[in-house]
């Protein structure tokens, strides 16, 4: 039985997460009288998950090396303030208001600032040997304070019009045609990648999944992509904005109105791109191999000639860069930079990684799991908001689920030993 499952490369943890997510979604839909599983709610859910999911990708790498980063929320707040001031105050004077390059400069500045902070904290941890808990706890206070300092606490708004699209909203989606195009390309890419990996294993004479399982997995993955595209395209842009879009395009607004679909939200595409890139980093590069080896046995990695200190510093640099991207998404969504942005995000990001199967003992974790973990937590919160549950009780539930998820994981791990 166990051998059978192994041959299918069945991942019980991933399956369990997907099952839990399905149960949460169906449960809330039932309790809310069908208000949860609507295109509108699911689309908003995906947008709300994006920022935490992006940071969770980096947190997996950090926790896999047996470290922690408590400063991610504060970094997000600080970077958000920097790019807010940059695009709302500095760049308008230098290159003009609503310049087409503004958003690009802001995004690059966000990633660079985040990476620099991360590398700096990483250097303190790796080369000076200060525990990451302490360095990033200090960082939490420092960067949160620094975020206030940038404008003496003033909120910066509004932000650049093109930049705002990064955060979602009616204009922050790619539209119907692009959504189908992305879905088709994604399906082709999934099929090609799976096919290539399988053929390569076979050319070496290694065991592979039976054909039926291979095709079933491929079809399931493609069905999920097509389903997501269908949902995103079933969510209509509100009539007021739709009318503006039609008229801007030179058309006339018909009496009965027209259906304009949102399509995939840009922040969600960014999060998925971040997830794919980080997964590639973690599984296909030497850097990723060293990250896991360090988490499994730091001394062994050192004896094998791995530069463990440099690797560790780069892990925190990656985490910082991802915080920079998340800062763009969250500031753009608010259309404002506030020094309180990202407060408590460190806890949600760590919780997402842990619910997603990342072991605090190090050495074990997947990016996909952490992103699913972020989606599970956001689903719980959105569902409870939909049901009118008070905010304090929401925290009680999310906290309880975190502990429960880790307990299930502990039991599960004991079971497979």
């Amino acid at each position: 039985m166990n051998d059978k499952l192994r041959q299918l490369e069945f991942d019980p943890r991933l399956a369990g997460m997907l099952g839990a997510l399905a149960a949460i979604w169906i449960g809330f839909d039932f309790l809310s009288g069908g208000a949860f599983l609507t295109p509108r709610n699911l689309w908003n859910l995906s947008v709300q998950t994006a920022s935490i999911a992006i940071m969770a990708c980096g947190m997996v790498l950090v926790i896999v090396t047996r470290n922690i980063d408590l400063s991610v929320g504060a970094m997000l707040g600080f970077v958000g303030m920097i790019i807010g001031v940059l695009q709302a105050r500095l760049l308008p004077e230098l290159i003009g208001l609503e310049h087409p390059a503004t958003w690009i400069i802001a995004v690059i500045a966000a990633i660079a600032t985040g990476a620099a902070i991360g590398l700096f904290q990483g250097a303190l941890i790796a080369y000076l040997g200060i525990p990451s808990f302490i360095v990033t706890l200090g960082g939490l206070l420092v960067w949160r304070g620094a975020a206030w300092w940038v404008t003496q606490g003033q909120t910066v708004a509004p932000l650049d019009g093109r930049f705002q699209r990064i955060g979602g909203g009616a204009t922050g989606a790619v539209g119907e045609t692009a959504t189908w195009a992305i879905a088709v390309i994604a399906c082709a890419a999934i099929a090609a990648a799976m096919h290539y990996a399988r053929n390569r294993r076979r050319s070496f004479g290694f065991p592979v999944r039976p054909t039926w399982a291979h095709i079933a997995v491929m079809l399931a993955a493609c069905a999920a992509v097509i389903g997501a595209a269908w949902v995103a395209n079933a969510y209509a842009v509100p009539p007021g904005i739709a009318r503006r879009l039609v008229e801007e395009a030179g058309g006339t607004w018909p009496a009965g109105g027209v259906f304009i679909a949102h399509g995939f939200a840009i922040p969600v595409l960014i999060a998925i791109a971040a997830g794919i890139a980080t997964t590639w980093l973690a599984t296909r590069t030497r850097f990723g191999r060293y990250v896991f080896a360090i988490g499994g046995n730091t001394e062994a990695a050192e004896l094998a000639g791995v530069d463990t200190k440099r690797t560790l510093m780069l892990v925190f640099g990656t985490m910082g860069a991802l915080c920079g991207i998340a800062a763009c998404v969250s500031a753009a969504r608010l259309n404002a930079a506030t020094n309180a942005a990202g407060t408590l995000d460190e806890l949600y990001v760590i919780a997402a990684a842990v619910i997603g199967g990342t072991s605090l003992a190090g050495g074990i974790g997947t990016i996909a799991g952490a992103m699913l973990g972020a989606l599970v937590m956001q689903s719980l919160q959105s569902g409870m908001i939909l049901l009118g549950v008070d905010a304090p009780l929401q925290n009680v539930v999310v906290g309880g689920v975190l502990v429960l998820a880790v307990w299930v994981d502990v039991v599960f791990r004991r079971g497979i030993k």
Partner: protein
Amino acid sequence: MKPKLVEMRDVSIAFGGIKAVDRVSVDLDEGEVVALLGHNGAGKSTLIKILSGAYRADSGEIRVRGETVDIASPRDAKRYGIETIYQTLALADNVDAAANVFLGRERTTRWGTLDDATMEAETRKVMARLNPHFRRFTEPVRALSGGQRQSVAIARAIYFDARVLIMDEPTAALGPAETRQVGDLVGELKRQGIGIFLISHDIHDVFDLADRVAVMKNGRLVGTARVGDVTKDEVLGMIILGKCPPGAEPGPGAEA
């Protein structure tokens, strides 16, 4: 005269005032097996960790084929063809056999990404030689038995064309059949001209495999001897009492 494959001269290292290794000199020829013996805590592992680049000696000299070398890291040692099977095995438990065999020396594709298929294929080849029954190539090595883990550690050391092989207590976790396999392997590698330091706290494990023995006690060298020139009991006397028999060449740690 042909220079020795490896020579360690008057090597010392202290940890917080405790001299773990004190002016020890040992050497090794091509195709020679030198057994490094001594009680637990005698300083054997520490001595070879200096040769493998894990520690830096406080003083002393290391020569490889007559040339003085500076071994500042495990990478340096590997560059001189010195490969080590550590007493603790030094495996990353959470990744598979191939990832461990190639750790720090990964094969990459022409795009610079990990070439896992090639690494697995090579690992399968070397494991077929070491442990023909080994099948669990895609599981973390945590799931393996002591003997299988040992094979992975050995595979890592011999895959990369070692000139000098250090085996620190290689049979400690093994049953009789597997111990015999390691013995056969030592013989085979010796015939290929590889020099081997074979470390053990138990003389019975290594006496028949070794050409020479070097005995340590309290961080110091009691003496070295050709196995033909001393009896097992005499070597036991070196290990336990630090007494150097007439057939052996005494070191700084020999009792008067």
